[in-house]
């Protein structure tokens, strides 16, 4: 048995250390199971071997893939097999890697599909693809394939009876203890509710629940996942997983900003799909809201402040129509100048025309530090909806920095609400209650946390917990403004308390649903990410890449980064609790490297045994 310290997720290690002998005693003798970053699962019969996703045997007769996530595939690639089987739903990812990465060079901008990009770096075609219900015969065993999407869009489970025990090889569908590897992988469109991928928080939950339902009907003795220990109590774990997932989703719906826009019909459809027939959402009533003041104009996603002297100051310039309207306002004498632009956050519907507007009006652009670098160097980032239009001269507005503009006083804020790369601007002026321009972070119905790829960290020191605190600590009677909504609104103390307490309940639920030592590893796909994400290089050149690591843990950890692809070598970094840092790896582009997109990946190892293979990627366009 391999050391359990190689298991990628910390908490179940303890569980496994307590119970291994019981497990091993009951497992069918023909099954060899060893925990690892991807569990080695091998069935031996009459001198021949079959592996599921990974095997400590370098050569097997048959290899079964449960899904096509990159860390699974790159581990499976190390196993030589005579024949490989995979779900039909995995085919595009196993055979279309070149096309995906070539087009992703441009598709990564203005990106709203919100799918995990852990796509293999190169093709790994299967010999046969399986439809739901198909069977494989191998050495006298019948292997039943069950399509089980949910955690991923693809995904299948192999059901095998060995020595009188029925085993389900589930990949990442469900882990022992009724957990899943992370939350963000579930992000997807909810077609029945006309909710797109960007707004689809855990959007694949209903498909996942259906998949678990299939397994429940099969009287399984063991769930054998590709991460963590074997589940000896399949039905109990499945029921626990379903119950926790539904509680998380119900909690999410109860505080959600989308109620304001979509009303009951769509949100109830979402509820019914996950919670069951006739289940309704129960959000709080809309917060108090009134018309915007005369000095604030709503122009698309732009809010324009107009001073008594006729000068303008804009929050965001997204679409061309917003820019045209600002130009027309100046032409019509409605504003004499545009004195400045504040970018609330890094989404393209708020930033796309900022550079052109700044050039036209010859005005400065301000943004919170966490937003400014995305504006200056959008190609270095991969985040939802980032525009490729750079704003090179963006000025950083520090958290708490103040500025006088005409009869208004501004206080700039870092405000990691709708996305981490987000700011806010508190505006005060005589004769009006303060107005806090909070970008897209709240609506009168609650929290804009529908997109997990926006990095809504659930930490006490940042994310929505920081936003709640800033709203609560803002001056008395402060109004909030969302860039999409032509109203002022504000939460009563009771409403704010409801949002906060609900959020903390969800934090606890996610703790119990995911196996990490800190929930933020399960929420934040980018806890380890390359910077720059994309860059153009020439053959023969050398460059450095950072792997930025967020130690979400409340303990010190040393991280080792191993680069793959044309990048080589390792780097180490030690980080304190909640600290963020970067380890650098060098890339030497061969002089004969062909032009095109090169994908570099990194394996991240943590000093307590967590190992995440080929976890994050960077794109190099070689010219």
């Amino acid at each position: 048995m391999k050391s359990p310290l190689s298991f990628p997720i910390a908490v179940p290690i303890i569980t496994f250390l307590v119970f291994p002998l019981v497990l091993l005693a009951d497992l069918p003798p023909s099954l060899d199971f060893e925990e690892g970053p991807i569990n080695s699962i091998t069935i031996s019969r009459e001198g021949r071997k079959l592996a599921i996703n990974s095997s400590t045997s370098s050569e097997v007769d048959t290899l079964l893939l449960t899904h096509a996530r990159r860390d699974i595939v790159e581990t499976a690639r190390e196993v030589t097999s005579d024949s490989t089987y995979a779900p039909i739903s995995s085919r595009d990812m196993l055979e279309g890697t070149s096309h995906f990465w070539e087009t992703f060079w441009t598709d990564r901008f203005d990106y709203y599909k919100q799918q995990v990009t852990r796509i293999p770096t190169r093709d790994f075609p299967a010999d046969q693809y399986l439809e739901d219900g198909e069977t494989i015969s191998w050495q006298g065993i019948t292997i039943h394939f069950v399509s089980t999407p949910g955690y991923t869009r693809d995904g299948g489970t192999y059901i095998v009876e060995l020595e009188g025990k029925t085993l389900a090889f589930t990949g990442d569908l469900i882990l022992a203890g009724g957990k899943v590897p992370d939350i963000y992988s579930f992000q997807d469109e909810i077609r029945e509710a006309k909710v797109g991928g960007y707004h689809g928080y855990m959007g694949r939950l209903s498909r996942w629940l259906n998949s678990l339902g299939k397994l429940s009907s099969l009287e399984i003795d063991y769930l054998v996942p590709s991460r963590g220990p074997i589940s000896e109590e399949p039905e109990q774990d499945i029921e626990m997983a379903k119950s926790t997932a539904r509680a998380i989703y119900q909690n999410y719906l109860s505080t959600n900003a989308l109620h304001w826009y979509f009303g009951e019909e769509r949100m109830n459809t979402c509820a019914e799909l996950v919670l069951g027939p006739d289940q309704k959402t129960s959000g709080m009533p809309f917060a108090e809201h009134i018309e915007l003041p005369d000095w604030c104009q709503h122009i698309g996603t732009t809010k324009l402040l107009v001073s008594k002297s006729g000068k303008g100051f804009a929050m965001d310039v997204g679409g061309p129509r917003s820019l045209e309207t600002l130009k027309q306002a100046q032409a019509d004498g409605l504003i004499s100048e545009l004195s400045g632009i504040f970018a609330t956050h890094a989404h393209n519907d708020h930033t796309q025309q900022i550079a052109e507007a700044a050039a036209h009006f010859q005005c400065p652009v301000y943004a919170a530090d966490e937003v400014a670098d995305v504006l200056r160097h959008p190609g270095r980032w991969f985040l939802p909806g980032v525009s490729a239009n750079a704003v090179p001269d963006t000025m950083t507005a520090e958290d708490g920095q103040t500025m006088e503009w005409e009869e208004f006083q501004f206080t700039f804020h870092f405000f990691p609400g709708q996305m981490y790369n987000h700011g806010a601007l508190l505006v005060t002026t005589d004769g009006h209650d303060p107005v806090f321009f909070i970008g897209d972070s709240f609506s009168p119905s609650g929290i804009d946390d529908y997109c997990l790829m926006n990095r809504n960290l659930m930490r006490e020191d940042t994310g929505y917990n920081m936003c709640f605190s800033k709203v609560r600590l803002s001056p008395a009677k402060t109004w909030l403004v969302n860039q999409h909504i032509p109203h002022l609104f504000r939460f009563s103390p009771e409403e704010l308390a409801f949002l906060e307490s609900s959020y903390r309940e969800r934090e606890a639920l996610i703790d119990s649903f995911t196996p990490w030592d800190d929930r933020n590893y399960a929420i934040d796909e980018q806890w380890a990410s390359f910077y720059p994400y994309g860059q153009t290089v020439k053959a023969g050149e050398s460059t450095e890449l950072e792997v930025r690591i967020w130690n979400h843990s409340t303990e010190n950890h040393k991280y080792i980064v191993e680069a793959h692809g044309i990048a080589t070598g390792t780097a180490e970094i030690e980080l304190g609790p909640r600290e963020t840092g970067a380890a650098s790896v060098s890339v030497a582009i061969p002089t004969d490297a062909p032009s095109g997109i090169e994908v570099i990946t990194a394996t991240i190892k943590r000093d307590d045994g967590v190992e995440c293979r080929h976890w994050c990627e960077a794109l190099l366009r070689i010219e």
Partner: protein
Amino acid sequence: MRVPVLTVFLICFGAMGTSAHDSLYNYIEVRINPDSEIRIDFSVHGPELAITYGVDPLTTDTSWLDVLSPDQAEKLLDDAGSFILKTFQVCSADENLLTASDLFLPTLPEVKESWKMSEGARPGSFVGTLLLPTSLENVTFQYGKADKRLMLVVTRPGSFPKVYDIGAEQSQKIDLSP
């Protein structure tokens, strides 16, 4: 009194907004200009009508229409027209000025040609246009049963746009004077 109405239906890409967030509302823009007819544009996010064809309802590029067959695309245009007629009423003296007989739907080639000409239109949106005579003093917009809110924007030369944020099954009276 029956008021002369001319309705033109176009599909446009590229303009008022730029992203998935555009689908948060339905949009009506009323353009009041003393020198010409009153123009009312109804904007509907196309991919939401195409989910039965496997289109992500938040799709914002132009690729989604390419995956549809010509028959499907034509039906989508019909669906968009039906949606506008079903969802919006523009009333003057209790008469609905927006009727099926006034609605013109282009052919698919016309639609695709309009993409090239329509830089600046909302990505993925269908836009239907209604022209009203300047003699009308006011109209009432009745927003029907809908699954999202309506943003009603009124523009006049020399003024900032006036914006109304309207919930389903609500109405809003608009003064049409220049």
